[in-house]
């Protein structure tokens, strides 16, 4: 080969490579014009579609759109009938009687009956299933004993009466129970299908059967492109206007934004980092969405003598400038916290946002913080306070948060405190939290449903699995017990109880609320009918369509 031939060949290779990529469809027609198809990205792989066992948000998003339950949360945040025709609650709040629509079918055309619901509840409670969500059944008659393996699953307070009626018997009134009736984890499962699939159940899109608006297709368990197609056997198929929803896994949030701008996906979150947020917040497509998630610090009161001292905890709380933290460390991608409960979880009975109603008034007061800290140190009498601050490394924001807190505390208390940051993988943070192997830990909680109890239940005892600081606060416990006992059926009294609980938390400085999450995404303006929920199913595409 002569020199010029070689160069020509090289040039041809380059042209073919670049041109080929353009011709390969990536550069062709704009998918955001195709009316029958919507395109979305997932930030991580789908892990599995076992209704009782899946734990991650992304599998839940797919399940929530391909499986239906009795109810489905509507755009106003109210659980509305889906597979159920109607439901009645007894006056004591202990019995739920649910009538199913007639002629319900699975995606394979077989009949969907009350038995399928009962099986699903029994399966998740069954210790043999080993579901990490079995605790959600708590409150249904005998559920706790069944989960603990002390009673057989047939004792669960969920019974089918005929093919069309399901009756739930509760141990205590639970105003939030209607939300559980919309959870993907409790969606019906067909026993014969589950048994036949055996250990393969939910591991590919064809090892699952669908009761929801869409069927899931093209997922082999590990690939990163798949789709949902309209389920013609869904009872309300006529109102499902989109034929296909294409999904792809996009791990890098910047890539998602790029694909959005190229018209290849219809939604991209912009709040992964402060810089990304400020770069995109001016875009006309930006839409905020509510998220019932909160970040707070837990103080290890059981093991750390300094943190067992109320004055020191109080001082740390007072030295935390939540407004500056939100604007600087998170760059405005989060809102400063006002209490434990996140913003926009649910409206209180008086119409206010619950977080606003219960606001116990956390403040930033450097002078008072210094004073209390000095007193506290004297009481503990062990000299300088060395403390570790643990967080997981899942987003750049969580790193900046601990950097910020360390600097803020050390500049306030000077040489009396030394803060060591401990940034660890998520699972390790969890284990450290559960074993009490930390001093101060940054915890996040995303509410399971739109009711205050999803937050306040966390600390109602020391063994809830969430009270990692192991604190005991009788006023708090009493207030929560009252809300879930005598006030359960009285919304405004219940809200007052939440408020008392929140005040008790602040009084003892048991936690340090940092910020409340919010969603901000680029959203294609010609896509209508998408429902985003602050808790539960994050993205509901049942009635979504492109105009």
């Amino acid at each position, binding site marked *: 080969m002569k020199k010029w031939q070689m160069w020509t060949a090289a040039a041809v290779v380059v042209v073919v490579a670049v041109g080929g990529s353009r011709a390969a469809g990536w550069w062709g027609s704009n998918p955001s014009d195709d009316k029958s198809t919507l395109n979305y990205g997932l930030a991580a792989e789908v*892990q599995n579609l076992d209704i009782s066992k899946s734990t991650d948000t992304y599998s839940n998003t797919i399940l929530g759109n391909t499986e239906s339950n009795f109810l489905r949360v509507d755009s106003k945040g109210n659980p509305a009938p889906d597979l159920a025709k109607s439901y009645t609650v007894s006056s004591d709040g202990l019995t739920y009687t649910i009538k199913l629509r007639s002629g319900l079918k699975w995606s394979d055309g077989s009949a969907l009956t009350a038995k399928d619901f009962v099986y699903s509840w029994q399966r998740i409670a069954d210790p043999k299933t080993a579901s990490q969500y079995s605790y959600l059944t708590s409150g249904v008659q005998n559920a706790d004993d069944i989960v603990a393996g002390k009673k057989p699953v047939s004792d669960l307070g969920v019974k089918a009466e005929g093919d069309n009626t399901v009756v739930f018997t509760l141990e205590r009134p639970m105003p939030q129970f209607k939300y559980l009736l919309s959870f993907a984890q409790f969606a019906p499962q067909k026993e014969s299908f589950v048994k036949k699939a055996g250990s393969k159940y939910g591991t590919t899109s064809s090892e699952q059967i669908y009761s929801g608006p869409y069927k899931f297709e093209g997922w082999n368990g590990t690939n990163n492109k798949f789709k949902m197609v309209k389920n013609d056997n869904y009872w309300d198929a006529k109102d499902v206007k989109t034929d296909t929803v294409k999904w792809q896994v996009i791990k890098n949030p910047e890539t998602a934004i790029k694909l959005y701008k190229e018209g290849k996906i219809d939604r991209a979150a912009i709040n992964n980092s402060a810089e990304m947020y400020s770069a995109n917040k001016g875009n006309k497509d930006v839409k905020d969405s509510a998220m019932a998630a909160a970040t707070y610090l837990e103080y290890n009161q059981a093991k750390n003598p300094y943190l067992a001292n109320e004055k020191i905890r109080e001082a740390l709380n007072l030295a935390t400038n939540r407004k500056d933290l939100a604007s600087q460390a998170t760059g405005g991608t989060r809102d400063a916290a006002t209490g434990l409960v996140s913003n926009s979880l649910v409206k209180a009975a008086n119409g206010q946002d619950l977080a606003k109603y219960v606001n116990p008034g956390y403040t930033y007061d450097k002078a008072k913080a210094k004073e209390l800290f000095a007193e506290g140190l004297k009481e503990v009498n062990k000299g300088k306070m060395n403390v570790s601050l643990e967080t997981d490394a899942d987003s750049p924001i969580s790193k900046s948060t601990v950097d910020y807190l360390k600097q803020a505390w050390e500049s306030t208390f000077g040489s009396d405190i030394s803060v060591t940051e401990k940034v*660890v993988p998520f*699972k390790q943070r969890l284990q450290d939290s559960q074993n009490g192997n930390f001093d101060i830990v940054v915890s996040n909680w995303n509410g399971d449903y739109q009711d205050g109890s999803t937050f306040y239940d966390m600390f109602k005892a020391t063994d809830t699995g969430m009270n990692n600081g192991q604190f005991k606060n009788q006023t708090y416990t009493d207030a929560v017990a009252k809300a879930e006992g005598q006030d359960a059926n009285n919304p405004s009294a219940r809200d007052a109880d939440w408020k008392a609980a929140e005040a008790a938390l602040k009084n003892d400085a048991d936690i340090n609320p940092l910020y409340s999450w919010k969603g901000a995404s680029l959203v294609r303006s010609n896509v209508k009918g998408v429902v985003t929920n602050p808790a539960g199913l994050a993205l509901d595409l049942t009635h979504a369509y492109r105009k």
Partner: protein
Amino acid sequence: MAKYILKRVLILIVTLWIVVTATFFLMQILPGTPYNNPHLTSSAIAQLNQTYGLDKPVMVQYFDYLVNMLHGNLGTSFQYQNQSVSTLIGQRLPVSAQLGLQALVVGILLGLWLGAISAKNQNNKVDGALGVVSTLGISVPSFILAIVLLYVFGYNLGWLPVSGWGDSFSETILPTLALAVGPAATTTRFVRSEMIDVLHSDYIQLARAKGLDGTQLIRRHAYRNSMIPILTLIGPMVANLLTGSTLVENIFSIPGIGQQFVSSIPTKDYPVIMGTTIVYAAMLMICILITDILTAVVDPRVRLK
């Protein structure tokens, strides 16, 4: 030959067993919980441990694992519940293999070409420039290169897709390039020194005396004889590729085994970490074995013992 291969395979199996054992016991002392849900109470965790057999004595778990492994069962992932590790790895392996192979082929071809140019121009400016470039290629970690390529060609120029796998060949270009630079640089340096040796050898001097010009010399004689030692490079190159591919796959959202490994670490998905480690070790050893055999086949001077 057959005896030699048999012996090597036996050693390979013993080595794998040691790797399995070491990893297994290492896993036991690593921090982290295998469960996702923060809301689990200690009794719930005890319950789950019982279901998954994690409450059994470690030795029992170890022998269970070995027995299952012999049956081709690497266990079930904690993170992707129900998904068997063999499936998770089996479906991702071809993706990684394709990426690795592409990078290796591109890298070696590029290296052969640049190495020959360098040798032909021994000690002049071209050689010097190529020397610096190839050393630079060795010093730049592939994940930094991947980030830069992504930024320049993906985001700024928008020529090539920035993520994904399986839709078009164009998706593979950037990750392949990021991974190919290392092997290309190594090969360039190696070919250069091999070829300089060969060019100084008697038979080349003879060919020169016969009147063959430079390019012909290199193509007819020098290449062939400096190719054989390159085979020995493939083993270490594959080892480096494995390291690089984990991060590069992550950067480009490629559903390969490296991405699986990286994501199983923070989630403490023991069965997947074990499985990927075994597969990695096996891949590396098999590559080294194959290159050893190939070397013996190609080069009559090498005798296998």
